[in-house]
């Protein structure tokens, strides 16, 4: 019996190996093999062939697979941009909510408020995508002007993504804050500190590694989030730092390209694997750091 159970546990290792080997292998096809594309649409029969290099992939500023331009930076940049906007929403609000719930709310208020955050956390991201496109974008366009804000833009995707991440940020930070022992709060109050001073100067610093972990896991979530950006951020790569402009993110690009017909081993097929592979490493690194901090934080107070 133990053997079968061990296999169940070990399956997760296969998943990770699968991700690394298959995604890695498929993305290497993009760099190792000669890539050919038809140029000039249906009439021209000319075929362009060329090689993509990893250097170009990581530093190029243009992503046009049909012209064999594989610079992933525009996609990475817009991913960073939407994630940054999301963090501007999720971190202050999430932290504020966490502090309120952990330090100020009475048990009965907490009992009513926490389910609301849970509901927010349970809403599928495609619904948030719909919200970003049909609510946030029009509101931004009304407030900031139709010429300023495009229908598809990074700002509305980022803002809604921030709302989506808020519950995660709030609940992880609240866990960290509640883990700070009561004795520290009493010690501070005994010195004549107000509740706010206790919270800001004692409780939050004591929980800081847990809060940073929450922040990092939230960033990882934002970077990997797909449907909101796929629906609301725009459907073509654009190297810009204006948040009111359209710009496709890494995940958005993968979903759009794979939604169409892509023959096995075609340029489009291989290129999305390369993007996904990069994405995997970014999120993995963030998650490992985040989990490390959580573990270390637990050790301090247990």
């Amino acid at each position, binding site marked *: 019996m133990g053997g079968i159970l061990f296999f169940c546990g070990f399956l997760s290792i296969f998943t990770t190996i699968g991700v690394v080997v298959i995604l890695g292998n498929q993305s290497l096809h993009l760099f190792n093999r000669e890539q050919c594309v038809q140029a000039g649409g249906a009439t021209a029969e000319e075929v362009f062939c060329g090689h993509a290099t990893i250097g170009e992939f990581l530093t190029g500023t243009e992503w046009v697979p049909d012209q064999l331009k594989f610079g992933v930076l525009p996609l990475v940049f817009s991913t960073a941009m939407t994630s940054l906007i999301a963090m501007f929403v999720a971190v202050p609000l999430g932290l504020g909510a966490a502090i309120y719930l952990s330090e100020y709310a009475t*048990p009965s208020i907490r009992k009513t408020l926490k389910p609301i955050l849970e509901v927010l956390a349970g809403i599928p991201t495609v619904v948030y995508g719909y919200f970003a496109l049909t609510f946030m974008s029009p509101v931004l366009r009304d407030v900031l002007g139709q010429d300023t804000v495009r229908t598809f833009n990074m700002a509305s995707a980022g803002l809604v993504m921030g709302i989506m991440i808020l519950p995660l940020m709030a609940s992880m930070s609240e866990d960290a804050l509640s883990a700070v022992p009561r004795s*520290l709060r*009493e010690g*501070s109050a*005994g*010195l*004549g500190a*107000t509740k706010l001073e206790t919270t800001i100067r004692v409780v939050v610093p004591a929980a800081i590694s847990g809060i940073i972990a929450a922040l990092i896991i939230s960033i990882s979530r934002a970077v990997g989030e797909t449907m909101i950006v796929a629906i609301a951020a725009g459907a073509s790569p654009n190297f810009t730092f204006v948040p009111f402009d359209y710009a496709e993110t890494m995940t958005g690009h993968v979903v759009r390209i794979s939604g169409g017909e892509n023959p096995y081993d075609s340029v489009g097929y291989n290129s999305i694997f390369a993007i996904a592979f990069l994405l995997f490493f970014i999120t993995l690194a963030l998650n490992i750091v985040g989990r490390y901090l959580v573990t270390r934080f637990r050790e*301090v107070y247990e």
Partner: protein
Amino acid sequence: MGNSNYALQAKNLNIYYGEFRAVTDVSMVVERHKITALIGPSGCGKSTLLRSFNRMNDLVPGARVEGELLFQDQNLYSPFVDAVEVRRRIGMVFQKPNPFPKPIYENVAFGPKVQGIRKKSQLDDIVERSLRKAALWDEVKDKLKKSGLELSGGQQQRLCIARAIAVEPEVLLMDEPCSALDPIATLRIEELMRELQEQYTIVIVTHNMQQAARVSDYTAFMMVNDKRSGELVEFDMTEKIFTNPADTRTEDYVTGRFG
């Protein structure tokens, strides 16, 4: 107001947790520059009473105090008194050492900083003075930047005392400050209390009768009544309590016949 010889005066103090009356009808005084000990079997409400002396119980949801607690002729439980201000003037040291996970310097400077003192030189002064008074300066003067958690248990407790006196309170409440310490560290703290007595009024809760007899000038003996609520049985000079108590229950307790 300075004429009174009493630092604190409790008049018919009742403390409730929700519906439950934890302490019933306590009236006693705490004399200036003396050490007053609260003793009694565990669960008799002596810690609760101590925590009501600087409105620490306000932090417990549902806690409520009736009666009067006079501090410099002002009732601390009057609606015009700010609990934060009370706690600044009546400091507290807890059962388990609870230094903040910050450098030793920051631990001591915490109170003054919260009061709004920003000047580095002034803070340095306060930190050194407080650590000296807490007899800790010589041991930590070279590692002020190290975390307070790196100190030994006894040192941590003295750090907490230094932290408490850094805000210059008038009264120092100590809730079984030695119960988590070894005998040598306990001895240091007791010596320290004697030294601090010159400048501060000290109220100490202890379950260790020898300690009460050793360090205190006055002793209050508390017990639970038939409603499981704490009552003050006897309050007098320590010497009298331990040699010639008026109440038989006190006598039973101090001679170790129960509890």
